[in-house]
């Protein structure tokens, strides 16, 4: 497992211009993923998970958004140094993305087959006919029944689960090195969710794709990823192997997240019995003061918390955390 990471995000900062001034929505995010590995990004709504993904793809609307610092290294090359034209060769080809809403993520006025083959034609210079055949093969690979017939259908004729499979077929049609799945199952019912995750695991094994799975559900992370990054208010709070994080979370926020996930709670050592939620609400990003943004909700607040933002420290093999309380435990 000591391969070089295929995608490495370093020190990524994203700012948004608003009426009241510039707001930083991502603060020096670091993460990396290796070929064939699955990592998770987890956190409450608005913490910057999607923003991290969109910044990686350089799909942040600019203006008002701007990637102001950092680098996104794909196989060692910094994507942020590419111009828009060069970046288009990366999107859908080297890095693909699937989104939360399969209902609205496909264009309602084009046939399914066209929407998949468009990606193949764009990046592999295939003819229409070859691309159609490849699309059917891809749809079979993601276990869509009656693929040859379905390419002539429109998105509204398919169920949500099927549409998400179509999205996956589209995203994988050029064998990308990295697949970013932004809450791919949130809009689907539980049985379909499980099928989609099984499918992602299968194609990953076949193709060796690196997967970045974005979710707010720790349970999903536990079942489907090897490593996890915990985010809060645009900050990375904790990162580590999934088992380690679930059994020995170091950050109070991570502990809170696990505590609200029913079937994970019991794994944590010396925890109170009841399922609880984290008190308080996510802060307004424009009101952050440069100190730990979780401070107002934190049950383990220290004196230092009001003085300085903690540095990221390593507490174990591949386990990093950004919290004064975790530092003291050492």
């Amino acid at each position, binding site marked *: 497992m000591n391969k070089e990471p295929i995608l490495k995000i370093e020190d990524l900062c994203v700012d948004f211009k608003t009426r009241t001034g510039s707001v930083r929505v991502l603060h020096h995010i670091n993460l990396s993923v290796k070929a064939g590995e699955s990592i998770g990004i987890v956190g409450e709504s608005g913490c910057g998970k999607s923003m991290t993904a969109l910044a990686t793809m350089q*799909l942040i609307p600019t203006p008002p958004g701007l990637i102001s610092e950092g680098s996104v290294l794909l196989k060692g090359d910094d994507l942020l140094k590419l111009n828009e034209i060069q970046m288009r060769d990366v*999107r*859908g080809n080297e890095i693909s993305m699937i989104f939360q809403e399969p209902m609205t993520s496909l264009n309602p*006025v084009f046939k399914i087959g066209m929407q998949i083959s468009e990606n193949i034609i764009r990046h592999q210079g295939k003819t229409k006919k070859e691309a159609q055949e490849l699309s059917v093969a891809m749809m079979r690979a993601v276990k869509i029944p009656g693929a040859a017939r379905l390419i002539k259908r*429109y998105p509204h004729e398919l169920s949500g689960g099927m549409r998400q499979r179509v999205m996956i077929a589209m995203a994988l049609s050029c064998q990308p090195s990295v697949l970013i799945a932004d809450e791919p199952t949130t809009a689907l019912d539980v049985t379909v969710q499980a099928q989609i995750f099984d499918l992602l695991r299968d194609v990953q094994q076949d193709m060796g794709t690196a997967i970045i799975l974005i979710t707010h559900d720790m349970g999903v992370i536990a079942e489907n990823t090897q490593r996890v990054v915990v985010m809060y208010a645009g900050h990375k709070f904790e990162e580590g192997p999934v088992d380690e994080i679930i059994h020995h979370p170091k950050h109070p926020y991570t502990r809170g997240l696990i505590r609200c996930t029913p079937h994970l709670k019991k794994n944590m050592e010396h925890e109170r019995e009841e399922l609880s939620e984290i008190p308080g609400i996510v802060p307004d990003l424009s009101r952050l003061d440069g100190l730990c943004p979780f401070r107002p909700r934190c049950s383990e607040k220290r004196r230092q918390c009001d003085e300085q933002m903690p540095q990221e420290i390593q507490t174990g093999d591949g386990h990093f955390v950004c919290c004064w309380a975790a530092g003291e435990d050492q």
Partner: protein
Amino acid sequence: MKFFYSLIKKVSYSLLLLLAVIVLNFLLLHIAPGDPVETLVAEMGGATPELIAQLRSDYGLDKSFPHQLLNYILRMAKGDLGMSFTYDQPVVKLIMGRLAATMILVLTALMLAVFLGTILGIMAAQKPKSFFSGFVTLISLAGYSAPVFWTGIMLLILFSYLVPIFPSFGMYEVGSSGNMLSYFLDVLHHLVLPALTLASIYLAVYSRIARASMMDVLGSDYIRTARSKGLSERVVVYKHALKNAVLPVITMAGLQFSQLIAGAVVVETVFSWPGMGQMAFEAILRRDHTLLLGILFFSTLIVIVVNLLTDMSYRLLDPRIK
């Protein structure tokens, strides 16, 4: 098959509508004061009561009201719209002579408004805060609030008198003879100002609609998906977004087509364009009921046909509607 079924349904609704319009037109004109024979007699400078009675029975005006109506509907069904007493010619023949001119004007204006409007709207939507976008909003507002006849007269003054590059009236040069091409160019030359005038108000409407719907579409998830495939901005906007964004424009164009025909009456009068609208105007002044009813009937027919066409093109563009 579903498509065919819904088409039949639409057509039968349309026929019913047509019948209703015939009855309504007839009623309205019947209630209106004034009688064509009175006008005719006034123009002739008086007549004997026998002659007046003779004329009344010639035009069927002495029959009872329901009788007149039934007669009218039956004749309509046979395609006989009666005789115009002011021109002393069959109404159908008169209308046919004018129909082409009106259709050329109205359809050119419609295309100008829809195409230019959509393109302006799209360009404005891509940079909603730019100077250009503000400019489009401004001319939209101006075009929308200015009365058609005012726009027409302004264009006349500007491009026909001050800078005489376009003719001020008519559809072609009187007495000009030549091949098809020179005739075509001649008509085109005469068409520019009236078509622009008629298009101006609708251009404003369509560019606003196109801008709003394009901005809406550009923010949608499937556009993000299209970008995530590495498609160029041109493909994203003019393929993925346009086909969705143009739907409300088409709906609007269909709905407003009747207003375009109404606008043509004014424009044809301002520019002496030899179309149905101009003739309708004359028919009203001379109380030529038969002719006016015929023109109203034809306008209704055109509007209904255009609405059907709009409906079908909508179905072709949007697979969700069946």
